[in-house]
């Protein structure tokens, strides 16, 4: 049992960690709510090109990359990926000549059946603007670090909230809500019920959010440690004069991982894969391996297999954090439940804020009563 002094310390910790993250959390909840329904919003706004696929066959990834090259002549392809939920929608991330930094890239959206590049700037679509606001407050890497800090504060608030929940509820029934004894007690009971009931979901979304915000440092560790070790024999060789077509690299990867489909491919010449290799990420059709693709490094000069293995554990954690954070991994019902939890989190923030303001007012009243009494 916590002593009164330690209980007071936990309460103080809960108050200030919550206060620090509340305003940010409200923004994250509102933008997160929009992101849950981004496919519907995209369709409503018509921000993504329609794809007709009756009776048509899909072009090969290599052909689509060629189409992207034509749309951005002189630029080099960096990442090829397919939209799992929209068959035929393909993204090719292109880099300007001589640039390696993916932050300066531009995505070309292609119709996988016709090879036609859509006249859409992905970064200027409503969903991407909301995503950027949600992920970095339009402040790039600094914004990501700041929001990681917000996530840590939220986690502290959750833990300290649980610690002070127990002594508070000792003599009460779970779910008690006192309606007849003033707004403050009503908000307090609601805050307790909301917080303790959504604890697991909030913890998971908070924790995976922190991991996603740390994606850039994790990728830097991957480049300097695991990727460097895997490509060590190639380190001193000059960059290949020409690279094999993407389709041949995919064939090699598919031989290494039968019954897997390529989720995305990184082209040689970008920091994520080095000068000598294609990195292909191969996902299984079902189960966890659908969310956590296997890593394949294919020699860009010969199309021979260099490495086929699981990604390092922290990269696997990064992969699995995406679905667990956004809730887009088990159909629309799961997304609706995700939205419900997000709304409950908003209510949790508002009731918490109410309690904080009520406390401040209470203090001010005490002070003014004291002043009246002593004047």
């Amino acid at each position, binding site marked *: 049992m916590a002593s009164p002094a330690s209980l007071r310390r936990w309460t103080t910790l809960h108050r200030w960690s919550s206060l620090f993250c509340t305003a940010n959390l409200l923004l994250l909840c509102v933008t997160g709510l929009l992101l849950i329904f981004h496919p519907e919003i995209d369709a409503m706004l018509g921000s993504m090109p329609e794809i007709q696929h009756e009776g048509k066959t899909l072009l090969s990834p290599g052909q689509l990359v060629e189409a992207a090259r034509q749309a951005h002549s002189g630029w080099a392809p960096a990442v090829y990926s397919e939209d799992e939920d929209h068959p035929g929608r393909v993204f090719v991330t292109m880099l300007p000549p001589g640039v390696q930094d993916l932050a300066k890239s531009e995505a070309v959206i292609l119709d996988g059946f016709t090879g036609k590049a859509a006249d859409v700037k992905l970064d200027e679509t409503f969903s991407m603007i909301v995503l950027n606001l949600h992920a970095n407050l339009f402040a790039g890497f600094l914004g990501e670090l700041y929001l990681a800090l917000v996530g840590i504060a939220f986690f502290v608030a959750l833990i300290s909230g649980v610690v002070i929940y127990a002594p508070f509820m000792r003599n009460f029934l779970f779910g008690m809500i006192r309606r007849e004894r003033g707004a403050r007690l009503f908000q307090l009971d609601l805050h307790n019920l909301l917080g303790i*009931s959504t604890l*697991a979901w909030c913890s998971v979304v908070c924790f995976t959010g922190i991991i996603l915000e740390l994606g850039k440092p994790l990728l830097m560790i991957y480049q300097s440690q695991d990727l460097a070790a895997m490509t060590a024999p190639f380190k001193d060789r000059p960059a290949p004069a020409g690279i094999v077509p993407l389709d041949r690299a995919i064939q090699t990867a598919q031989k290494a991982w039968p019954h897997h489909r390529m989720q995305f491919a990184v082209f040689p010449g970008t920091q994520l894969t080095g000068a000598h290799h294609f990195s292909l990420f191969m996902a299984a059709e079902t189960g966890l391996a659908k969310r956590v693709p296997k890593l394949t490094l294919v020699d860009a000069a010969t199309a021979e297999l260099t490495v086929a293995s699981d990604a390092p554990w922290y990269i696997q954690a990064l992969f699995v954090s995406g679905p667990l954070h956004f809730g887009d991994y088990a*159909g629309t019902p799961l997304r609706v439940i995700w939205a419900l939890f997000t709304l409950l989190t908003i209510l949790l923030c508002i009731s918490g804020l109410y309690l904080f303001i009520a406390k401040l007012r209470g203090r001010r009243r005490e002070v003014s009563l004291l002043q009246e009494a002593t004047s």
Partner: protein
Amino acid sequence: MNSLRRSTWAIPALLAFTSLAALILALVAEGVWDLLSWALLALPPVLIGCFWLKR
């Protein structure tokens, strides 16, 4: 039910367990398991709704 509610941790622990089970189940399994994961994960919002609206 009331004895369950009297315990500080019984219902919170149960909800935490079912929520985590649902999140993982939806991740590693398909088909009918998705149905179960939706049902399990809907428990906290439903329970909050019940207690909130209860007179």
